[in-house]
């Protein structure tokens, strides 16, 4: 049996209560919409890139604590990174919450605060809450017109 606190860590509660980078970005260069049809979570992602570098990023929408905290942590993490680095971070994050084996030390270090979401792994029904923002970020980076879906 898993402890509830493994899922709802202090960092997650905090980022849910006061999400960082929350709100519309007026000078966004790319915008994407994410949607989880299973639970109704909706997310808009606003991205500003210059020469493949994410100079600013924000989000708004509604969702559960996991989805809001994940988006808040993600936007904090990818700001200042190149699109390639952000893609790599998504890969590492994906491994963190999907793969049975824990990521190596180097990956954990690059994940930083994102590691707080590791507990989601024990809750298969909630994994999509944590990845919705990442799928939406990818849509924004690739300039997709269709909303990102978790299904």
């Amino acid at each position, binding site marked *: *049996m898993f402890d*509830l606190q493994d*899922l*709802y860590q202090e960092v997650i*509660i905090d980022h*849910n*209560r006061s999400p960082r980078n929350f709100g519309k970005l007026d000078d966004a260069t790319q915008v994407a919409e994410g949607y989880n049809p*299973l*639970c*109704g*979570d*909706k997310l808009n992602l606003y991205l500003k890139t210059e020469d493949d570098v994410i100079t600013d990023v924000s989000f708004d929408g*509604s*969702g*559960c*604590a*996991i989805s*809001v905290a994940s988006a808040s942590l993600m936007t904090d993490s990818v700001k200042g990174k190149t699109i390639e680095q952000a893609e790599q971070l998504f890969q590492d994050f994906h491994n963190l919450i999907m793969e049975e084996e824990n990521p190596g030390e180097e990956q954990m270090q690059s994940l930083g605060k994102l590691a707080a979401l590791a507990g989601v792994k024990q*809750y298969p*029904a*909630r994994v999509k*809450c944590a990845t919705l923002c990442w799928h939406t970020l990818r849509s924004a980076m690739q300039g997709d017109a269709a909303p990102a879906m978790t299904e």
Partner: protein
Amino acid sequence: MSEASTANDLKTPLLDVERIRQDFPILHQEVNGKPLIYLDNAATSQKPIQVIEALDKYYQQNNANIHRGVHTLSERATADYEQARGKVRNFINASSEKEIIFVRGATEGINLIAQSYGRTNLKAGDEIIISEMEHHSNIVPWQMLCEQTGAILKIIPINDDGELMVEEFEKILSPKTKIVSVVHISNALGTINPVQHIIDRAHEHNAIVIIDGAQATPHTAVDVQALDCDFYVFSGHKLFGPTGIGALYGKTALLEAMPPWQGGGDMIKMVSFEKTMYADLPYKFEAGTPHIAGVIGLGAAIDYVNSVGLDAIAAYEQELLEYATEKALEVKGLRLIGTAEQKASILSFVIDSVHPHDIGTILDHEGIAIRTGHHCAMPVMTHFNVPATARASFAFYNTFTEVDVLIQALEKARKVFS
């Protein structure tokens, strides 16, 4: 939280709930180290041992295809299958067994009506009336029919208590109205709709009426002849029966005039490449080998519900709902979604600062199963301006003590996010 009234004070003498619980093997287990408290009955109900044994007996002793073998097993299976049709007929008081069509569930029943009756009888400009509180299964089949025929979908709005605005229904009824299809009891809100009034008014305009009884049959006695509805659909799995089986009731004259929906074996009298003659009712609408075990299981579920008594069930569940409502309102920041005067035992709610999905996960840790999400009723969520709700839905095997544990768990959820 107030401990003033507890389980024992309110225990109703109508039902021996402890004895009933013995009939449901699944209830006697621990989930996450806590006794299971199953409050997701509106999604699907649990099955009594009598139903499980009926399925078991069919597969262990009587399994054979129906309506075609001359051998003993086939005759037994056919007899049990048709006997179950009689049980369904009595359960909703249809006038004939010919009016009972076995389908996969309420969803398939509505699709059958839309495609068979609807495509035959509707033309561009005709109107179909549904309500804002419908399950997607009573929205999408009509949208599909509208695309196919050019008919127009009209919506009866709901008020902020989650009740149908009957005066608005009166306004949209017109000579163009051909079909009215409304839910008997709302799965997302618990509202019990004034279906008798809706049926009477629609008939004055010569529209046919379909009642979606998926949530109603487990909670209230249904008499289709008294209602005078044209069609009534329900699902077995919400009625303590197996999944994948349900029934469609239709008036004989309507069913006889309707073309078959699906073609295949068992729905024909004679097939040649020049001409095929369809079978009589009800077989015309039951193409292919049906869910024989499911039908027999549904019959056993109806026997079980009858043995407990729907009046006693309804009375007990009302007490449970009143108790749960009163206790839930003591939880700070909790808002009920669905406060209709006439309600079945469904408690839909949101809590400030705790998203329904987080409530669901925290409750699961306490062994409590509830549903969180949009309950396949996204327009209802839009009306109340919430992305989702948490929903506790009660059956007659739930107890007042379980309500107390639910409330304690909700307090815990609030604390996690305080």
